[in-house]
């Protein structure tokens, strides 16, 4: 488990670093919201999931999508807008999805995934014959969104097997948690009678343990659970900041926030040789991914409206 947690944390880190380069080179247009610094959460939570569980993700979604099992190669091709991408180039960073892996997609609207995950998890109950769960990832900014709070009420009322995972990185873009959250984040869960806990989101093993407990209780039919993971975003809110140079985090905080690095924490538990071989395999994979993504064909403009509808009615 330690090796696989490390592997995922490291894969996400390096994937994101490659993405930032590809944004700079113009291969990824529109930019991304880098997940750097928060990798332990996606890695830890998704390690507690089965293949047939599902997740909903956010604008900062690469980590979740990778950790739930999407192919990094097709993922990168998606971010580069290629037909070989997960979404055939139609989604990009904020909508990357792989339904075959239970990845119901990143989402451009903050807080939107909670109700979708709840509905999916309720459907699993209804369909019977299993104990699948759903996980909804979101940030600290999302806990002020009405639709997410509504979803938590529905989940609790109907004992839906859904896990709400709040990644508290201290900021919603430039707004601090204390400026956006009256009361506490876990207080939102308590309001609906949903059990919650706050854990160190920098340590994938800790996250894994807490998520496993929550997921198991959901599988046993005990209803939803809520997990607040404390973390820090190492990079910009979005890569446009790399050019715009807006200032909203104190310099000391940026330093101290990076002191505990999920990659180092997970990596420190491995034998250096093992770690090195994992790292090498990741580099090889990402080299392949970059090559694939940058050389794959872009979609044909004449197909711009393909997939607009499930039933092929031309309006």
């Amino acid at each position, binding site marked *: 488990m330690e090796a696989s947690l490390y592997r995922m944390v490291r894969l996400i880190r390096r994937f994101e670093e490659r993405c930032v380069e590809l944004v700079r080179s113009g291969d990824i247009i529109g930019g991304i919201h880098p997940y750097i610094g928060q990798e332990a959460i996606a890695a830890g939570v998704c390690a507690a999931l089965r293949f047939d569980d*599902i997740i*909903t993700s956010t604008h900062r979604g690469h980590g979740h999508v990778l950790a739930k099992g999407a192919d990094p190669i097709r993922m990168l091709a998606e971010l580069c807008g290629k037909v070989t*991408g*997960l*979404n*055939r*180039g*139609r*989604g990009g960073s904020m*909508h990357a*999805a*792989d*339904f*075959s892996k239970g990845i*119901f*997609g990143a*989402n451009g*609207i903050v807080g*939107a995934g*909670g*109700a*979708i*995950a*709840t*509905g*999916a*998890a*309720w*459907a*699993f109950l*209804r*369909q019977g014959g299993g104990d699948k769960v*759903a996980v909804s990832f979101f940030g600290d900014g999302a806990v002020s969104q*009405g*639709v997410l709070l*509504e*979803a938590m*009420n*529905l989940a609790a*009322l109907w004992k839906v097997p859904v896990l709400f995972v709040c990644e508290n990185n201290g900021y919603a873009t430039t707004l601090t948690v204390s400026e956006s959250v009256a009361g506490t984040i876990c207080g939102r869960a308590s309001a609906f009678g949903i059990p919650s806990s706050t854990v160190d989101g920098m340590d994938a093993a800790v996250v894994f343990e807490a998520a496993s407990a929550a997921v198991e209780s959901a599988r046993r039919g005990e209803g939803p659970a809520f997990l607040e993971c404390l973390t820090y975003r190492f990079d910009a809110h979005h890569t446009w900041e790399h050019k715009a140079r807006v200032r909203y985090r104190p310099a000391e905080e940026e330093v101290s926030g990076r002191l505990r690095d999920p990659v180092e924490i997970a990596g420190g538990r491995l034998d250096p040789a093992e770690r090195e071989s994992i790292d090498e395999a990741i580099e090889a994979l990402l080299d392949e991914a970059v090559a694939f993504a940058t050389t794959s064909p872009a979609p044909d403009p004449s197909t711009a*409206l*393909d*997939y*607009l*509808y*499930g*039933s092929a*009615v*031309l*309006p």
Partner: protein
Amino acid sequence: MARLSYLKALQRALIDEMSRDESVFVLGEDIRVGVNNVTTGLLAKFGPQRVLDTPLSEQGFTSFATGAALAGMRPVIEFQIPSLLFLVFEQIANQAHKFSLMTGGQARVPVTYFVPGSGSKTGWAGQHSDHPYGLFAHVGVKTVVPATPADAYGLFVSAIREDDPVVIFAPAGSLGVRDDVDLETLSAVPLGVGTIHRPGSDVTVVAVGHHVQTALAVADQLEGEISVEVWDPRSLYPFDWSGLAESVNRTGRLVVIDDSNRHCGIAGEILATAAEQMRLTAPPRRVTRPSGAVLPFALALDLACQPDAEQLVTAVREVAKD
């Protein structure tokens, strides 16, 4: 032949689809008791797992339905008030509608949004009297407005079977319509196919929803003076442009009657497309609510904001004389 009301036709459609397909379920407010008379009795028939009374969390339960649909279900949501669709506009237009394209065809969101009693219910005033079908048509969500019991049945069935989100408006002014129908022949009515309720040769009147009845009455009234063809699009989006063209190219004259706001509404869309693509021998006309209308409470004011037979007669006479 049996006498079938529009309301009973809707109910029958829902029961038939729920019986046929386990994945269909219905959710909404007060639907177990069935305050809107469509879901009445369904709880007893299908149980609480398929007839889900929701808290007043429209946004939450609309995206809940999206999630359930993505997981293989076919939810039908009943909304008590047309303006509740405003409240969930993001969840429908920006989430449910966009999944298919944005995922490159991986995902399907077969949800039906259903408003029994859209438009003015008389005396329910400003926030309960809208007819916002044009909003959904504009963003590209499939939108249907049945005018007869058979179409209410057939379009509701199709909406539920459709692999995309579909909004179905059942105008308050249509709920009481009754027709003699052979129940055996009730069947799915495809989306995007209009119908001629009454053939005519001088003027094509396109009527939406309950104004099909208005148009039929006006056609009767003008009989002998002007031969009016009453054409009903049934789906506002997708729209049966070739069906409309067939009629308009024959009559050369077009009037639309539509109970929604004029500016950027479906009547304007119909006039625009006709002006671009069809053979018009006189300027077309539309009879609608005023632009930006908010329905006032007092009866006389409420009625003054809705299109009526008299306005339609005037418009038909105008285009006919040009």
